[in-house]
């Protein structure tokens, strides 16, 4: 028995997905929107980054379907009671990794703790030893000798699974392409493997293979080992890193969703109406820009914190509380970051409003709001799109910085920023604990790098000034 839970950010994330899907269908039917996207997916780097982003998005979406488990029925109980803990589909896929908590630090693929403990053996003698882990490598009798073989066997299994998956995927793809290219499936397959196509399918397949292999390795190894070790309270680091993906994506996308209406409407109004409207909007964003952003964010987040602390009755579960704080962080980041895009759009609108086609619409007596929507907005969309993809990586990094400062997401929310914040102390201890930082760093780095490369490709395709 489960009870679905829809958190605020879940709803907004799926709203965003819906918008993207609707836009995709709209763009399919409009050549001027389709053409630049077609150019984007012709670049090898762009396609590889797109695959990376797709895997991150998939992880994030799986982690956005939440539910609560029913508690076992007690005697005489009529109504079903649900547990206070909120799970997601990702938790279900990963199995028990989230609940396999050790006592404290352990290194990647370790079978003992990272610290010595004093234990009393059966002879009553006190000893300082590295005790065995409760879960990591617990299925082996003699891990010291069997560990290598076990990891190798599990990795090999993962490799076979990934290869089998890729085989099926390649065949399906060549069948589909055979229909589009009007070739026999065998010839389509050969052409696909030669890399002789407009869209670099071979690159896409190779990147998918890398990620499929990674996923298979995680599924096979994580049930028996702590692949990336455990943290201070014994929680699996890999699990935390995967759960952090959603936080990063939410911050990167929802902030833009919140920012866009401000930036677009105010920027267009300032540029089109001029006069006092322009003055008011300019003063507004100049003032907002002069306040140090971190200060504003810190003040708002702390106020929110106090409010939530004094009203605990508003939240059924801890997850809801943490989620609201995440949403609020997006909101405040959005409110402080619309100014740049707004300024850009104002300038572009100032230029567009003098163009002949806007003048022609004026000469027809077309209403001003129609001119804004029909003539100006579509010709500004490329700027908006470029700004959105470029801002994304900046916002993911901003979350890490804010959490490090302590005004970011809730400490109970798993996020890369929180992990890095904790790693500050771990790096200082002797012997050093390095895996937490490394895990957060490499996952965040991959995402931001892919986002940056993708945004470069999008800008090249959409910016008319860069056309060759």
């Amino acid at each position: 028995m489960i009870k679905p839970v829809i958190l605020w950010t879940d709803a907004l994330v799926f709203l965003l997905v819906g918008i993207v899907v609707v836009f995709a269908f709209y763009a399919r039917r409009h050549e001027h929107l389709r053409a630049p996207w077609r150019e984007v997916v012709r670049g090898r780097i762009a396609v590889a980054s797109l695959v990376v982003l797709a895997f991150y998005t998939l992880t994030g979406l799986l982690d956005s379907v939440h539910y609560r488990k029913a508690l076992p029925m007690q005697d005489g109980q009529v109504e079903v009671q649900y547990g206070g803990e909120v799970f997601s589909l990702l938790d279900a896929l990963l199995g028990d990794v989230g609940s396999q908590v050790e006592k404290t630090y352990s290194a990647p693929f370790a079978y003992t703790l990272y610290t010595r403990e004093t234990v009393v053996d059966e002879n009553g003698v006190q000893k300082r030893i590295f005790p065995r882990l409760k879960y990591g490598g617990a299925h082996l009798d003699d891990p010291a000798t069997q560990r290598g073989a076990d990891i190798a066997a599990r990795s090999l299994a993962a490799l076979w699974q990934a290869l089998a998956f890729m085989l099926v995927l390649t065949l399906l793809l060549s069948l589909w392409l055979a229909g589009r290219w009007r070739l026999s499936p065998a010839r389509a397959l050969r052409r696909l493997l030669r890399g002789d196509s407009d869209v670099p399918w071979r690159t896409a397949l190779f990147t998918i293979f890398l990620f499929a292999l990674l996923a298979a390795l995680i599924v096979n190894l994580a049930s028996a080992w702590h692949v990336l070790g455990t943290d201070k309270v014994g929680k699996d680091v890999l699990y935390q890193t995967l759960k952090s993906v959603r936080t990063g994506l939410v911050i990167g996308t929802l902030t833009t969703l919140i920012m866009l209406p401000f930036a677009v409407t105010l920027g267009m109004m300032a540029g089109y109406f001029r006069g006092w409207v322009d003055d008011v909007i300019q003063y507004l964003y100049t003032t907002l820009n002069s306040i140090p952003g971190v200060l504003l964010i810190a003040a708002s987040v702390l106020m929110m914190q106090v409010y939530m602390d004094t009203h605990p009755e508003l939240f059924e579960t801890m997850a809801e509380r943490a989620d609201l704080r995440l949403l609020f962080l997006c909101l405040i980041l959005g409110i402080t970051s619309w100014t740049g895009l707004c300024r850009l759009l104002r300038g572009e609108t100032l230029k567009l409003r003098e163009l002949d086609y806007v003048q022609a619409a004026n000469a027809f007596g077309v209403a001003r709001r129609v001119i804004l929507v029909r003539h100006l907005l579509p010709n500004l969309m490329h700027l908006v799109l470029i700004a959105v993809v470029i801002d994304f990586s900046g916002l993911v990094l901003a979350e890490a910085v804010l959490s490090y400062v302590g005004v970011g997401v809730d400490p109970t929310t798993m996020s890369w920023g929180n992990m890095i914040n904790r790693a500050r102390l771990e790096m200082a201890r002797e012997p050093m604990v390095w895996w937490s930082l490394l895990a957060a760093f490499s996952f965040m780095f991959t995402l931001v790098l892919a986002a940056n490369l993708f945004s470069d490709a999008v800008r090249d395709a959409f910016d008319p000034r860069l056309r060759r």
Partner: protein
Amino acid sequence: MTQTLLDVRNLKVRLGRGGNAVRPVDGVSFSIARGETFALLGESGCGKSMTALSLLRLLPQPAGEITGGSVRLDGEELLAQPESGMRSIRGGRIAMIFQEPQTSLNPVMTVGAQIAESLALHKQMFGDAARAEVIRLLDAVGIPDAPRRYGEYPHQLSGGMKQRVMIAMALAGDPELLIADEPTTALDVTIQAQVLELIAGLQRERGMAVLLITHDLGVVAGMADQVAVMYAGQIVEQGPRDLFYAEPRHPYSRKLFAALPDSSKRDRRLTVIPGTVPPLNQAFHACRFAERCDRAWDLCRRREPGWFELAARRGVRCHLADPGVEAPPEAGSGADEEERHVAAPADGAGHELLSVTDLKVHFPIQKGFFRRTVGYVRAVDGVSLSIPRGETLALVGESGCGKTTAGKGILQLLRPTGGRVCFEGTNLLELKGEALRRRRSEFQIIFQDPFSSMNPRMTVGDIIEEGMVAQRIGGTASQRRERVERLLEQVGMRPEHRSRYPHQFSGGQRQRICIARALAVDPRLIVCDEPTSALDVSVQAQILNLLKDLQGQLGLSYLFITHDLSVVSYLADRVAVMYLGRIVEEGRVDDVLDRARHPYTQALLSAVPALDKDTQREIIRLEGDMPSPANPPAGCHFHPRCPHAMDICRVRYPDTEALSPTHTARCHLLTS
């Protein structure tokens, strides 16, 4: 004189790679003698600029590549030179000036420093010697007060001055050959006359050869010794100027002459060249002009014509010139069709449709934190004119004289500061909001730039329909669609074009769509704001024909804003000449063009490059540039440049003087 300076043989250029590679220059051969002016004439996209750039090996990289041929300067092969060798040739032995003086100068360097840079490179001149030489050069190109101009920045100079600075910079290396790529296209006609005269004078003085690239037959007539016509990447005809102008041999050259509008063709349709220049990304196996040629027969579509020498340095690329081929006789019916009389004006002509009295459009100049108004730019300062039904009034003037602002003020796209605009008895200045919006269907506008006048994100059908939707005319959606298709046919396009996007059409086609868009709301008056100045001569003829036909069919009135006097003489019934926000002379087209009385009109007319060199009038040189409308000179605005200025001109603006019932002017010369 006859010693060859530059010899180009079979030059070929390719842009891009693979199946879509474009060959903008495909086997071009010519030679330039020392001290000669060689004109390369052609429409846009025919490869003349690419030819010039490839002589200097300045093709856009990495796309451009010279794939064959030879370029010899004084017997020295330029294509075999290493890049370091080319650096001393560029700017040293061959110099180049470009079309846009605005973008060819570095805005953060003083004019003097930019010229001195060239001297340091090519003559190793530095310090005071270089400074003295720069000032001498600035003097040579006719810049007054050269020592002061030395330290000024490009933005402090006018367009004509900047082009002079560009020429001074080109002269710095004492070039043997000057390549001038459309040097006067961006300039006004009076400034153009000054710059052309300067180039011709310098050439005589220095014995330098000039490669003049232009699309303007008039400029060529005044300047060139030898003319070559380019079409689709090849030279189709070459010859000494006098022979070429007396008897052009290639059908394309003949059509170019025939397509030029002037007063003698008023009652006829202009000759048009149907179709467009073929795309250059294909391999040609036929004559490149065959599709558009009225003399073409099956041989033209089978075999590419070779080059036929007719005389020394005179040749043509056409099967008609081949003595071994018997050409079919010239068809008579086609010519008749084209010279058909333009339809007579519709009934009801002659009644006044629009009358503008004392129109003023002033823009406030605001300064400081509180935007205090410190002055006004008097863009339009008391313009009065009237247009009868079914007639065309041409508003003529140089850039910056306020003619476009006047047009927009009449249409209420800019709200005028004062005056009356009576459209069929209603003063449009008194209409506001919804009342004005409803009247907007009756007066429409066609813009100069066919590329920016349509929203690139809308289909042609939606663009044409927009006005009908806004004005709630045209009935249901399907009726509107039918009307869009009818309109497209009316302007010479096909109904299925309605589902395409503007970028899929050429400049001339887009201008047709813009005309259809304006016609969609059944206007009575159309303001045409330089509708043909961005188009080639052959396309311009198509649009002018269309405008004239529509006037005949629908009884439209046009306010035709232009700087091109040949178009005026072909199309207009009445002409108003504008200078610095005011109309200085107005009258019927023959009054103004043949019996101009105002010194400005006379200067404007004399500056137009004439096709026929024998009748070329003495050019009345106007000193300096048009003053700023923010700070017009006291008295008559024209007096600082006027060759006949008197004392009274500096004191008082002259009143309107009626010279005949149909001809007025504002000049003190006419009262005294």
